[in-house]
């Protein structure tokens, strides 16, 4: 509340009009920011303040490409739990099921093929998934900040993290050693996930003409899906 005391032109008041308190300017995203330093665990607990049912709700809502309300759902309480554990699960699932699927395809082609576990799948999966999940939202955050929109990095990480959930389920289906079926499954999952990302990104940058950014996000997600199919389930 600002008061405007009358500007008494008696004493040559040099102060002009006074305002009570400063205008509330820091209220964009997280009002109480209990940041106690980079190395204190308690400063990160604010990003893990979720219960089991909230996490499951967010994972289910990542299946619906039309909707565009993910950001409003996570606005008060974005969480990094989904990002970390969904990407870790995806790394494990890709490495393990990728080996199984490669073995099954080889067995179909040549029935004397024997099982061999390629540990390199773990490395490639870890680099690819963690790299994508961390770098792509970061890049979009900086891009959007540069282009003028007000974006929030934690919410971007949260959304991209949950968008990877559908790949976990589709990886189980991709073990089926029928090539056509594999392509259908991965394209369906890829388009679903890419639409989810694109629609939510559009709802975040509404008002500005940044369709090219939205399309870039769509194609990146689709490219990830195709990479998963091509490398782990050949």
């Amino acid at each position, binding site marked *: 509340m600002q008061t405007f005391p009358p500007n008494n032109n008696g004493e040559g008041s040099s102060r002009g009009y006074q305002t009570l308190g400063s205008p509330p300017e820091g209220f964009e995203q997280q009002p109480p920011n209990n940041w106690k330093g980079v190395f204190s*665990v308690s400063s990160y607990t604010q990003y893990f*303040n979720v*219960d*089991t049912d909230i996490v499951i709700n967010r994972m289910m809502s990542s299946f619906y490409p039309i909707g565009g309300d993910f950001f409003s759902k996570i606005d008060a309480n974005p969480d990094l739990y989904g990002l970390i554990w969904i990407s*870790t699960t995806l790394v*494990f699932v890709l490495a*393990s099921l990728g080996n199984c699927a490669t073995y099954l395809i080889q067995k179909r082609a040549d029935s004397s093929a024997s099982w*061999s*576990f390629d540990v*390199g799948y773990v490395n490639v999966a870890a680099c690819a998934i963690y790299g994508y999940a961390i770098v792509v939202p970061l890049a979009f955050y900086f891009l959007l900040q540069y282009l003028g929109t007000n974006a929030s990095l934690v919410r971007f990480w949260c959304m991209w993290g949950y968008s990877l959930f559908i790949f976990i389920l589709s990886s189980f289906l991709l073990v089926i050693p029928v090539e056509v079926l594999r392509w259908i499954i991965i394209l369906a999952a890829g388009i679903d996930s890419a639409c989810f990302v694109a629609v939510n990104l559009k709802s975040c940058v509404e008002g500005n003409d940044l369709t090219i950014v939205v399309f870039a996000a769509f194609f990146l997600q689709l490219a990830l899906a195709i990479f998963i199919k091509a490398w782990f389930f050949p």
Partner: protein
Amino acid sequence: MSHSDTIPLHASSQSDIDEIENLINASVQSGPATVLPARPPSPPRIPVSSSPFIPSNLPPLPSTHQKPSFVPSVPSAPPPPPVNSHSSIGASGFGSPPNTLTEPVWDTVKRDLSRIVSNLKLVVFPNPYREDPGKALRDWDLWGPFFFIVFLGLTLSWSASVKKSEVFAVAFALLAAGAVILTLNVLLLGGHIIFFQSLSLLGYCLFPLDIGAVICMLKDNVIIKVAVVCVTLAWSSWAAYPFMSSAVNPRRKALALYPVFLMYVSVGFLIIAID
């Protein structure tokens, strides 16, 4: 126990022993400084040699070598010496630190091994009628987890036919980093757990998977491997469940337990898949 037949100490080492003993005496008189939270002061254990500490095999030196018969009679306010299971000043009661410095190495090793075995029994074979359920939590140590992780890595690496060192690296990194990350996960979810206790417990819960890995190394049939790994996986998860679930808010129990399950499933998969 074996003071009668030892080789006489080198002349210079006696002064070291004196110095350390004086430091310990000084700290007794100055009173307890800090008490570690996870260790209630345990009663002074009977020293390994039943006699009070007397350097019986040494020629009496003319220096200021006062030797009051060092009776372990200070049970009232002893601060336990810092836990450092690697050195000989082990975690015994206050009466015997000088003894643990000069005791034979075999005694130290035996004491640590017995602690590992007792922790293992408490963690992996939970007995609901046990009289002191929190004992394993208080007496945590990291030797046991270290042995189990390295043993699992070695077993997996031995079973692998190609890329042996990479398999060991993946297994070791997965387990070590996994234990740290799981503890951090509980802390971030707002749970109450002490970091090293949790590392210790997660390490001990690996023991069933170690047994499973050895069995899978010896038998090469896929069906048997899958069955054995499933049983040992269930056992490991069952052992880890009470500790993890009691540390967090009940509404977030699944969030804390799922990563534990994920880690054990991935280790189990490694065991099955290594050929």
